């Protein structure tokens, strides 16, 4: 049972999809049945995923619930799944957000329900697969498989420019991941296996890529780039972000929630899981440049978000900014920074997911997202406004809400980092991003929620119904919980993050670079 838990987790949504298709042939079928079936299966998936927590006593310092069987003998590809502190919370985030986004599509999706819910379930299965696969080929398989349903979700149920957005999304991500595929096969050629743990073991025992290429780091460098390119596009790191505003804006609400909440995390997760551990020495060399890109992204995303006339586009650009934080923290290579980075992934999923849901709700009522169309919603829709304000504050990073913990840890980690020389400058710049996020979100709130009720149409809007409140409540609870009591979350990821961190920092390669040399006089508070 333990061994098959992850497979069950992946297959439950698939079973749901098959049930949907089967139901479409039933004589007594009704369009409304589809959403109930889908909701049922996604809730079951969530319940199953909670079983993962029973291994909490191990602190997830190593892979739990491992399943490792041979898949393709000819190329020794394996079906190897496992979950550790890095992936645990992301899996849970996935299984939580999917039922919520299905619930959010309850009335907004009124055509082609069968296909919509089928794609949602396939997507869920692929996303879970990405986070739990430990074989590079399987990982790639799920990574790409998540692309297709999202492509359809944007393209069929999206907004005005949905075709443009869907194609842009697909081509960008596909190009990146194809390069990763080339990298994966090159790794295979060296190690004759796709199994991540086996490759890592071989590297630990001295068979690093630069050792295999006789001290030449060029290939390792290209491999790092091949992997990183795929993940940078997915994250998206500036300047690879241009697909994101289009895709987020045009996608249906559920699609945006999943896209922002989980698909972007596949990029940062991939960076942390694969780039940092497989190519540690190159990661150290590249870290300053990536940090620069991340900081540019933080400030650029915030500045562009500020001038957006469209609420959804504003939230989309705020994602660019927030994901910049995640990358910044990760590449600080400090425990605080990396823990904060992981924590911020969850925060972003929760709060940006909530923001997209809220924007979707108002769009359903007004069929517009122009900020100038709104104003004074707090009078006509008090409950809605409350939720909107709390989600925004969480996204800004107000203390006692989840965003604060993540951003604080990341900034602390960046301040303490030894990987770049003038870390305090980087921290200050990142801090500017926090301030800017407060500016654009509060300004947006002022124009949408507060102020006088200028527009006649806004006066007659109905407030949230119980379904909508119900689907926001779990996210709200999470925001508060993660804001005041982050310990259980951080505890379970600590050991895994520490493994990655020590792997990055203490792996010598080519003998030309050590952390100590970069910052010879600095006191290291982490060790």
């Amino acid at each position, binding site marked *: 049972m333990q061994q098959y838990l992850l497979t069950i987790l992946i297959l439950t949504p698939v079973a749901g999809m098959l049930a949907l298709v089967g139901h479409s042939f039933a004589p007594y079928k009704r369009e409304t049945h589809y959403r109930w079936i889908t909701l049922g299966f996604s809730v079951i998936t969530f319940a199953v995923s909670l079983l993962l927590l029973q291994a909490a006593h191990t602190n997830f310092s190593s892979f739990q619930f491992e399943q490792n069987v041979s898949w393709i003998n000819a190329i020794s590809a394996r079906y190897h799944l496992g979950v550790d502190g890095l992936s645990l919370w992301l899996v849970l985030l996935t299984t939580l957000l999917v039922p919520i986004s299905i619930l959010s599509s309850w009335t907004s999706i009124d055509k082609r329900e069968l296909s919509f819910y089928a794609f949602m379930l396939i997507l869920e299965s692929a996303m879970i697969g990405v986070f739990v696969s430990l074989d590079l080929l399987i990982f790639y398989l799920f990574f*790409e498989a998540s692309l297709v349903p999202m*492509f359809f979700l944007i393209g069929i149920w999206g907004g005005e420019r949905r075709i443009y957005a869907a194609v842009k999304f*697909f081509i960008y991500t596909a*190009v990146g991941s194809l390069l990763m595929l080339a990298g994966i096969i090159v790794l295979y050629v060296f190690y004759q296996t796709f199994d991540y743990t086996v490759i890592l073991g071989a590297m630990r025992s001295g068979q690093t890529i630069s050792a295999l290429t006789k001290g030449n780091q060029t290939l390792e460098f290209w491999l790092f780039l091949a992997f990183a390119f795929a993940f940078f596009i997915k994250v998206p790191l500036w300047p690879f972000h241009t697909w994101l505003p289009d895709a987020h804006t045009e996608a249906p609400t559920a699609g945006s929630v999943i896209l922002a909440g989980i698909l972007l995390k596949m990029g940062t997760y991939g960076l942390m899981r694969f780039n940092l551990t497989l190519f540690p020495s190159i990661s150290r060399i590249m870290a300053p440049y990536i940090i620069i890109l991340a900081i540019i992204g933080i400030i650029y995303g915030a500045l562009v978000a500020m001038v957006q006339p469209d609420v959804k586009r504003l939230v989309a650009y705020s994602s660019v900014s927030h994901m910049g934080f995640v990358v910044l923290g990760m590449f600080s290579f400090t425990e605080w920074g990396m823990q904060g980075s992981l924590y911020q992934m969850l925060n972003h999923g929760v709060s940006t997911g909530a923001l997209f849901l809220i924007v979707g709700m108002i769009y359903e009522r007004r069929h517009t997202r122009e900020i100038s169309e709104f104003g004074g919603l707090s009078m006509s829709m008090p409950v809605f406004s409350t939720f909107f304000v709390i989600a925004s504050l969480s996204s800004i990073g107000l203390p006692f809400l989840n965003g604060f913990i993540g951003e604080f840890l990341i900034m602390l980690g960046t301040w303490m980092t030894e990987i770049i020389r003038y870390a305090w400058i980087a921290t200050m710049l990142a801090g500017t991003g926090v301030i800017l996020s407060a500016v654009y979100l509060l300004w947006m709130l002022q124009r949408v929620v507060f102020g006088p009720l200028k527009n006649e149409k806004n006066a007659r809007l109905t407030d949230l119904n119980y379904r909508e409140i119900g689907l926001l409540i779990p996210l709200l609870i999470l925001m508060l919980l993660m804001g005041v009591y982050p310990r259980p979350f951080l505890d379970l990821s600590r050991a895994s993050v520490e493994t990655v961190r020590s792997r990055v920092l203490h792996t010598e390669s080519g003998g030309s670079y050590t952390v100590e040399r970069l910052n010879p006089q600095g006191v290291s508070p982490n060790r």
Partner: protein
Amino acid sequence: MNLSLALQIQNVSPDVNLLLILPELIVCTAGVIVMMVDAFARPRQRWMTGGLALVGLVAAMAASFWMWSGWAGPREAFHGMIVLDELRLGFTFIALLVSALTVLVSMVWVEGENLPAGEFHSLLLFATSGMMLMASGGDLVIIFLGLEILSIATYVMAGFRRTDLRSNESSLKYFILGSFSSAFLLYGIALVYGATATRTGLAGTTNIAEIANRLDVSLYPPLLFAGAAMMLVGFGFKIATAPFHVWTPDVYEGAPTPVTAFMAAGPKAAGFASFLRVFVFGFPFVATVASVQGQIHAAWLGALVVLAIITMTIGNVGAIVQNNVKRMLAYSSIAHAGYALVGFVAAGATGDPVFKSEALSSVAFYMLTYAVMNLGAFAVVTLIARSGDRRTDFEDYNGIGFQSPGLAFTLSLFMLSLLGLPLTAGFMGKIMVFRAALNAGYYSLVVIAVLNTAISAYYYLRLIIVMFFRERTTSWSAPRVPASVIVVLIITVLGVFYLGLFPNRVLDAFKTRPPAVMATR
């Protein structure tokens, strides 16, 4: 010296082993029977011909499976003219599968178009036997013979809709350029034959394994180069590599859709089978570069790398600008020939038997995956095109996604598989080919292939976009799907997933087993 003495010197005792060509014989006999049934049966009974053809193909498949699993006898016959190895069996299987699926697709179609069913099916069977001979020939003459049997039947099939000008154009173009390429090939064979005469007085040879032995003792090395180059061009035409691809789009567009399906999957695979055998075994890898053999090997391998790059790029770039689905698929088939050439290069570049076997099986596997998804796609295109191939433009697919969801989703699956998305056969095929090339050290070639895959995403997705993301403005009546086509779609969809998820068994079967080093005497 008189004639009788000369005859005594020659070894005339025939090395006959009919069991070794059993699948070919079965298919030929089935073709003759179908022809006779067509001639003698009353017009009403001619629908039987399709069924008979299927029976013949299935029997041949059974025979080849038998040879696959438990063949203990000699692995060559007719003085090395016919060889038995996994390369042959793999491609024989592909030929039979393609043919059987084509029969299933065309069974109802051929009646609906008022075409002579019996002739169509017997031509198809003869073409299949030609493909099988191309895969099993260990001698240039047999390969040429197979090629001609295949080509002549295909020329006729391309022009099968006699009253349709596009079909006529397709047939004529195919005939002229096909004969042209056959001439190239034949000239190449002749030159190689002439060049393999030795100083010791041995006459030239057309046996592939023997050619490899004679390369370094050849009397006329320049002729060898010329002959190899001619054959390269000839095969290049047959499998539609750029710059010898110009006939492909016109021919594929004009030919009746089931015939296009057959042409894109079958003859291309057969061309690869003999192309592989002639070059990988006839002009094999050698460690000493200075020798004649080494020079020839380096020359053709280099040429092939260039061909692969040009073919992938031209195929993919050409496909982007097409407005006709069949033409787009034609360009995509050019691109896929380029990807398969990547595996070919890998097979040629190594002397290690294990790597070579892996690379060869990767090409065979690639052609199998391509055949499965391509036939599936063309089956749907046939249905949507209706009688007379009237609706083959992208416009005609506008918004049919939710009008005919079954067909549209199936076609999308094939498009994604052609694109090489994970979980599908196309992905596994690409993985195998790329891995072989990387094993042989062709990093940049693989990177170019990967970038090409990214380009191809654009036009494969375009069809999906047209079907699902646009709204239909004109009326649409869903085509009736005949039972035989449903069978084809089920087989191909399952095949796409089976080859994409559990390719173990097929890969093992396609791989050469260690003791039987191929085609050595």
